[in-house]
């Protein structure tokens, strides 16, 4: 006989609860005849509450079973010192990776604030006063609202043109830390937000307006919004120079950011002109590096020609 077999608790319970077939029962009873241990055990279980038995058996198994770390430690002793060293090394490496990741996250969230979408337009070139005030107003409003998570949200900003059509109107709130950040960064030029609409409206130069909407935070141009906007403006101008009919068109793109920071998987969500859309795709494709989103969310960009 290779393995010494024995009836275990669950089988005994099956027997007691008449869940065995007659021939199974017969075999069980034969075994009981042979084995007084089984016979005694059966008597004990007959006198017990089945649920309590099950619970106790489980506790016993836990107590004695493989989880007993003392035994294992005793076993290893000197022969596996290197194992311990390797284990410690791995733990340190793991800790290192984790801390690195945390720091990375901090950088990202520093810019992108929170995982919502608030639409803001910033006049990056001209007077920053007005949009700033509106930013503040909007933020104030947003802060009062209750939070929802990453649903795409666009808000209409009175007085400024909003590029994409408003989507679901779940409100988003920015917490105070991000408010502070927004304030300070808005002082600069572009706001670093989960969602930002960058527009430059300088009639004489006819700069393009691009609006950036995101489903959730974190992806943004590595060198900042200003740099990006400047790039887009230039490209759009160039395109319009080639073909003036491009003016007035609007293209909305959805894309991911790959590990190198390039825009990939660019999809045309919406466009008023397919040829213009292709141009927009190209502009995005060649755009300066992005920081990848921490949660692999897609990003959206609207380019107004």
């Amino acid at each position, binding site marked *: 006989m290779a393995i*010494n077999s*024995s009836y275990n608790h669950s089988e005994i319970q099956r027997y007691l609860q*008449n869940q065995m077939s*007659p021939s199974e029962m017969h075999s069980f009873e034969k075994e009981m005849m*042979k084995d007084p*241990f089984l016979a005694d*055990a059966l008597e004990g279980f007959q006198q017990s509450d089945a649920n*309590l038995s099950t619970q106790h058996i489980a506790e016993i198994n836990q107590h*004695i079973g493989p989880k007993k770390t003392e035994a294992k430690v005793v*076993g290893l002793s000197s022969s596996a010192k290197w194992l311990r060293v390797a284990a410690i090394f791995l733990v340190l490496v793991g800790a290192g990776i984790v801390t690195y990741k945390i720091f990375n996250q901090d950088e990202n969230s520093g810019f992108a604030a929170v995982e919502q979408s608030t639409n803001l337009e910033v006049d990056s070139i001209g007077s920053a006063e007005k949009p700033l005030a509106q930013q503040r107003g909007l933020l104030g409003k947003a802060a009062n609202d209750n939070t929802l998570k990453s649903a795409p949200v666009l808000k209409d900003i009175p007085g400024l043109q909003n590029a994409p059509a408003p989507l679901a109107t779940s409100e988003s709130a920015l917490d105070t830390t991000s408010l502070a950040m927004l304030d300070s960064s808005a002082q600069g030029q572009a706001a670093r937000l989960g969602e930002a609409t960058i527009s430059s409206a300088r009639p004489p130069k006819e700069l393009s307006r691009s609006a950036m909407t995101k489903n959730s935070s974190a992806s943004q141009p590595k060198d900042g919004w200003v740099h990006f906007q400047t790039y887009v403006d230039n490209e759009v101008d160039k395109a319009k120079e080639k073909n003036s009919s491009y003016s007035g068109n609007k293209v909305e793109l959805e894309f991911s950011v790959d590990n190198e920071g390039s825009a990939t998987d660019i999809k045309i969500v919406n466009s008023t002109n397919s040829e213009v859309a292709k141009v927009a795709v190209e502009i995005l494709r060649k755009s300066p590096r992005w920081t990848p989103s921490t949660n692999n969310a897609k990003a959206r960009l609207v380019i107004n020609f």
Partner: protein
Amino acid sequence: MAILKSITKTNLPDAELVQLYQQTQQQDILAELYLRYSDLVYGTCVKYLKDQEIAKDAVIDVYQELVEKLKKHTVENFKGWLYMVTKNHCLMQLRKDKRMPTSEFQPGFMQSEDFSHLEAVMEKEQRLDSLEVCIEQLQEEQKNSVRLFYLENKCYNEISDITGYEWNKVRSLIQNGKRNLKICMEKNGN
């Protein structure tokens, strides 16, 4: 390494695990072995100690006893030996608690051996004739029960239905019948 060990351990027969434990004294080997029968230890303890909570503790206590005992004793049949250790533990505990005069279970007296021998006898065709004679000599109720159980392979419930004897009675009839058959067969030189 530890992982490999546990994979191969689970298929080893009791005797080998005992040996392995006696060589290495590694507790996880004993745990492996003990857990094969720990359910039976629990049930037996409940029978003798009459209390499930106390029985649960007893199972752990028996295990602790084994840690040392198995290192020292020669054990050929682990399961039988474990049964003995369990019963002794329970009886000792009862004596301690209730100060009841109980005689310690005699090691070496294994009824199961006799029965298994008889099982082998019963299944051999050549002996059926003398067996048949002995069966005939049994008392009516024992005869019926034994026939139904061994020759027709019915289970207690079925026998109970057929004969009208109550379950426990069926069981004791079969046991007594077996014992009588054994005596009868030995008398006849079998």
